[in-house]
C-alpha cells in the first residue's frame, strides 16, 4: 500500500498540474473515484492564491481587469506557489513575473506599478520604528556630518520606473480616477514608507533614489551624495535631505570609522 509521504506527493503534484491524472483511491460515497471532488481541492488552492494576489495587487487588477488578472495570476501561482504559510507576503516575485509575461507587453509600465504595490505591502507589515526629527539630526556635529551613516526606517522602500508608474498607481487605487497618461513624460521614482500609522508614498526628486540606496547599503552621507551625483548632476542635497527627514526616512545614525580605524 502507498505510504503517507507518497500519497501526499501525488496529491500535491496533481493539485499544481491540471494535466496530471487524479491520484488513485480518492473516492465519492459510492466507493468510486470522483474527479469533481478532487477538483474542489485544486480549485481551492489555485483560486485562493489568485485571490491573495488580487488583494496584494489591487491597482494591477484594476488596470488589466478581472479576467486578464486571473489568467495572469493563475500562471504565476502554478509557477511560483508560496514558500511560506504567511500569505501576507505572498507574491514577492509577481512584479518580475509581469515584466516577463508576454501577453502584458502592451502595458510596459505594469510591472513597475506592481513594484509600487509590493513596496506598499512591505511597508505596511514592516517593523514599527520612531523616525528621527530634524532636531534629532542637528545633534550630529557639522564636522562629522559627511562621514555619518544614517539608518533608514525599516518600512522604507524605493522603486524606480522609466514610466510615470507612480501617477498610474495613484489613479488606480481606491479613490483614484484613471485618466490619459503620457508614457513619454519621463520616469518616476517612488518611496513607500510607514513612519507611524499609515503607509505614505512619495515621489522622489532626481538622484534621491541613488542616495537612499547607498545609505541602505551602509554608505556614509558623503558616499551616498557621490552616488546621487553620478545619477544626476541636478542633485540638491539640502532640499532632498529636508524632504526625507519630513517623510520620516531616518531612525538613527552612527559615525563611520576612519580608514584604518583606531590604533
Amino acid at each position, binding site marked *: *500500500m*502507498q*505510504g*503517507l*509521504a507518497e*500519497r*501526499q*506527493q501525488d*496529491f*500535491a503534484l496533481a*493539485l*499544481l498540474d491540471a494535466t496530471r491524472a487524479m491520484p*488513485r*483511491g*480518492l*473516492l*465519492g*460515497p*459510492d466507493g468510486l473515484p*470522483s*474527479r*469533481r*471532488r*478532487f477538483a*474542489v*481541492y485544486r480549485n*481551492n*488552492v489555485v483560486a*485562493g*492564491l489568485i485571490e*491573495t494576489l488580487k488583494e496584494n495587487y489591487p491597482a494591477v487588477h484594476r488596470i488589466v481587469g478581472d479576467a486578464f488578472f486571473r489568467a495572469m495570476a493563475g500562471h504565476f501561482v502554478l509557477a511560483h*506557489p*508560496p*514558500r*511560506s*504559510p*504567511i*500569505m*501576507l*507576503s505572498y507574491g514577492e516575485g509577481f512584479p518580475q513575473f509581469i515584466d516577463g509575461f508576454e501577453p502584458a507587453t502592451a502595458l510596459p509600465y505594469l510591472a513597475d506599478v506592481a513594484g509600487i504595490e509590493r513596496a506598499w505591502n512591505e511597508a*505596511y*507589515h*514592516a*517593523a*514599527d520604528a520612531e523616525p528621527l526629527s530634524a532636531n534629532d539630526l542637528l545633534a550630529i556635529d557639522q564636522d562629522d556630518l559627511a562621514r555619518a551613516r544614517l539608518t533608514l526606517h*525599516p*518600512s522604507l522602500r524605493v522603486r524606480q520606473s522609466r514610466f510615470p508608474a507612480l501617477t498610474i498607481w495613484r489613479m488606480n487605487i481606491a479613490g483614484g480616477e484613471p485618466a490619459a497618461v503620457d508614457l513619454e513624460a519621463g520616469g518616476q521614482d517612488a518611496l513607500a514608507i*510607514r513612519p507611524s*500609522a*499609515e503607509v505614505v508614498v512619495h515621489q522622489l526628486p532626481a538622484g534621491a533614489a541613488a542616495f537612499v540606496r547607498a545609505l541602505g547599503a551602509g554608505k556614509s552621507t558623503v558616499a551616498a551624495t557621490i552616488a546621487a551625483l553620478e545619477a544626476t548632476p541636478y542633485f540638491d542635497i539640502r532640499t532632498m535631505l529636508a524632504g526625507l527627514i519630513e517623510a520620516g526616512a531616518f531612525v538613527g545614525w552612527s559615525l563611520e570609522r576612519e580608514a584604518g580605524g583606531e590604533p
Partner: protein
Amino acid sequence: MTVPLRAGVGLKPQHYREILETAPNIGFFEIHAENYMGAGGPPHRYLAAIRALYPLSLHGVGLSIGAARPLDQDHLRRLKELIARYQPGLFSEHLAWSSHGEAFLNDLLPTPYTTETLQRIASHIDEVQETLGRQMLLENPSTYVAFAESTYAEPDFITEVQRRTGCGLLLDVSNVHVASTNQQWDPFAYIDAYPLGAVQEIHLAGFTPETDEKHRPLLIDTHNRPVDPLVWQLYAHAIDKIGPTPTLIEWDADLPAWSELLAEAMRAEAYMTSHAPGQEMRLARIG
C-alpha cells in the same frame, strides 16, 4: 485571559474600527495566527487594542500537522512568539496538511485515516504541545473525498489522536455537516461518536451547496454566508450534550456588516442558553 463560555467571531480588518468605537458585548475574538506574523504595522496595533478589551483565541491554518514531513520549526517558533505576545485563551490547529516540499499549498488538505497517519499526527501534536508549553485543540476537517486506504472512521480516528496526545478538541459543527453530507454519513451519529469530553471550542460557518458529477450534493466549506438551519440543529444537539462552550462564528469571505456578524454570535448564545443541559434540568425542576 480565559475564553468564556460565550460566542465570539473571527476578527477581520474591515471591522477593527467599528469594534473599537462601539465596544460590543461579545465573548471573544479569534484570529488566524498567520495574519499576525508580519513584523509590525496596523494589524498588530489594532489587535493589541482589541486584545486589551477582549479574550482571544488563536487559530492556526499553516502548521500542516497532517503532513508526512516534519513540522516547520520556524513556524512553530513564530506561533510561540505570538502566544507570548497576545496570551490567547485557546490555541487550535487543523487535522489537515498543506505543505509539500518547498511549497505551501494554502488549503486544508485531507489525510487518510490509517495507523501511519495516526502515529504521524500524534507525534506532531506531542511536538507542538511540548514546544508551545500548552495544550492545543485539534479541529475536525471538512472533506470532499474519502481515501481508499482509510481504516478508521473519522470520529474514531480523532478519538484515538486525542487519547494518545491529551490534546483538546475544536468541534467544527459546520465541518461535521459538510463532511457528513459529502460522505453520506449521519451527522448526529458523528457527534455522538465524537470524544465530546475533550471539546473546548465550537466553530460554526456557512458553506456553498454544489453537486458532483453524479448529481450528489457536494457542500463546499466557503465561510462566506450565514450558518445554515441544519447546522444550527446540529449545534443544538451538541450543546444539549456538552453544555455551553466557546462558540465561534467563522465568516472569512464576502464579509457582512459588523452588526450582522454580531447578530450571528448572539444567536449562538441564545442556543447556548436554551439548550444547555443544566438549563433544561433547572426548568424541569421549576415545572
